[in-house]
């Protein structure tokens, strides 16, 4: 009888070996956690939906770009950067790839982060995790690293996919400079989505209900994409100088308006990415006729473009770090009680 039972159990465990079963490749608990988070995400519907959305974006923007590539090249004979047009060309009906990313990026970030901590709490797994011999910050760090890893893979895949299909369809390979520009563009996209990911993680620490934290994330996103420019307009109208006395005053004022707009991560992102993908952009600030006079229209070299958007890049990274720091502090100070 017991022998039969033994056999049964042995058979069951043999069977499980062939079933989907998790094997952790790292010995270090932190990487075990990262691995688990990544596996969880990849197996979830959420990720599949996001991936589908992004693939759709790629196809749609490729289609727009392809159909407008000819006219875009004819319009602009000054630049030799044909390949970059794939990411920016549009006929006005469908937005190009960069606009898609600035629109969907926040959604991806929020979707991957909004239930990071509160779902652990809600399921009652947080206190069980905390009872294991791992430092407390591993939990939030692992979640961040895992999500960022997924975003990186996703964005790089899409970017390279676009490049690949672009080469196939147009028959034009990208020049090394174009390749690096695309690479830096993808890097900025990852940082940009990282900002929203961190914001969502912060809300997930702060709010106990995943729905509340998702909604808060979406609210911030809506605020910046819909109402923020309106708000800036109101401020601009209220503070506009009544009498313009000289050029420096108006330039200063223009700079002030621009800096206001730059509070929004999307603004920083679009400035950074357009500069990277449209090499003919030479400045982001106001420019006088005097300065423009005599300038030879031509593309900037990559180094100069990078230099131009360095503040934007720093700003985005700083925003991501600050928000993550906030959620870190919030999380570390939070009282551990099961579920409540």
């Amino acid at each position, binding site marked *: 009888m017991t022998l039969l039972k033994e056999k049964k159990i042995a058979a069951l465990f043999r069977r499980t070996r062939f079933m989907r*079963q998790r094997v952790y490749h790292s*010995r*270090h608990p932190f990487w075990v956690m990262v691995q688990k988070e990544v596996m969880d995400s990849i197996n979830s519907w959420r990720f599949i939906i996001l991936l589908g959305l992004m693939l759709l974006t790629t196809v749609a923007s490729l289609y727009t770009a392809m159909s407008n590539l000819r006219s875009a090249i004819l319009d602009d004979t000054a630049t030799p950067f044909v390949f970059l047009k794939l990411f920016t060309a549009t006929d006005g009906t469908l937005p190009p790839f960069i606009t898609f990313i600035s629109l969907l990026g926040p959604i991806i970030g929020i979707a991957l982060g909004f239930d990071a901590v509160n779902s652990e709490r809600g*399921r009652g797994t947080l206190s069980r995790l905390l*009872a294991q011999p791992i430092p407390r910050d591993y939990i939030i760090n692992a979640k961040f690293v895992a999500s960022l890893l997924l975003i990186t893979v996703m964005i790089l895949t899409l970017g390279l996919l676009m490049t690949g299909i672009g080469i196939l369809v147009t028959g034009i390979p990208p020049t090394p400079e174009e390749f690096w520009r695309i690479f830096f563009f993808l890097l900025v996209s990852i940082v940009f989505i990282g900002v929203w990911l961190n914001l969502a993680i912060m809300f997930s620490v702060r709010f106990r209900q995943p729905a509340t934290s998702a909604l808060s994330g979406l609210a911030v996103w809506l605020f910046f994409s819909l109402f923020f420019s309106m708000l800036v307009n109101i401020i601009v109208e209220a503070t506009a100088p009544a009498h313009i006395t000289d050029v420096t005053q108006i330039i200063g004022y223009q700079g002030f308006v621009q800096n206001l707009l730059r509070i929004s991560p999307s603004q920083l992102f679009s400035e950074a990415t357009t500069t990277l993908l449209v090499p003919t952009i030479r400045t982001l600030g106001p420019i006088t006729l005097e300065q423009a006079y005599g300038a030879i229209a031509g593309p900037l070299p990559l180094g100069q473009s990078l230099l131009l958007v360095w503040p934007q890049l720093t700003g985005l990274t700083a925003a991501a770090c600050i928000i993550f720091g906030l959620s870190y502090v919030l999380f570390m100070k939070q009282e551990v009680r099961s579920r409540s």
Partner: protein
Amino acid sequence: MVKENIIELKELTKKYGEVTAVDRLTLSVHRGEIFGLLGPNGAGKTTTILMLLGLSEPTSGKVKVCDIDPTFQPLLVKEKVGYLPDEVGFYENLSGLDNLLYTAALNRIESATARQRARDLLELVGLTQRAVDKVQTYSRGMKQRLGLADILIKEPEVIILDEPTSGIDPEGVRELLALIKQLSRERNMTVLLSSHYLHQVQLICDRVGLFVEGKLIAVGPIKELAGNLFKNEPILLKAEAEPVDDRIISIIGANQHVARVEQSGNQLLIHCREQVSAEIANIIVSHGARLTHLSQHDYGLDEIYHRYFEGGRSA
């Protein structure tokens, strides 16, 4: 043989703002015993447990678990202590086995060893047949048993169980408690469990500590506690009569062996020092009332509980 103290608390205090959750708690738990923390909800049991694990910092006082201070070296303590929170949760989309393997990996247990241990433990808690099913299909009792396997996979010296029996049916409770007892005896493991169910605690605990409003008001084996508490009035009589009036009560109360009389409707609870049921029956009948019930009661845990908590509040 001197018993080795595996958990030592000295003057432990935890305050949340103005509220004192745990008030100057001094307690020691010996190696290999099953110790029950008893108390109503909000008595400070969970707070104490969190401090034992270093998950919460004490306001003042000292904690030592396995000779380690959990406030400063929580990781070392967590390697030796298994903690099963109340309402334990698992990753519902993973199988029971995967959940165990994850915990094992977090404890740096090598994968082959982890599989072997997971297999043995699932067998021990009777979940082998369901090992590869997702946890979302498990019942409450099964999750609790999986929780037990989960804390045992790191082979701890001490296990701490917070309300391990809440929400499980009576048969499940019996099995779980038997399992805990077996583990403690076979592996010489120290068990600290908190509960507000006295009857269950009584079944397996070597010693209990009674908690009321953050204070430990009594420690010892249950029998000893009961003996101390009721030594002045060891007999409880329950009588029912119709009609019951104040005159009867005052006459019964006047009896030299009767300590106290409590009335609820037609029911009288008479605490007395000697067996005086004959006299009481006599009094009731001679007053023209109809005696419908008269019996002697043993003090159960409910009475101990009730008595202690009443005492704790008034003190």
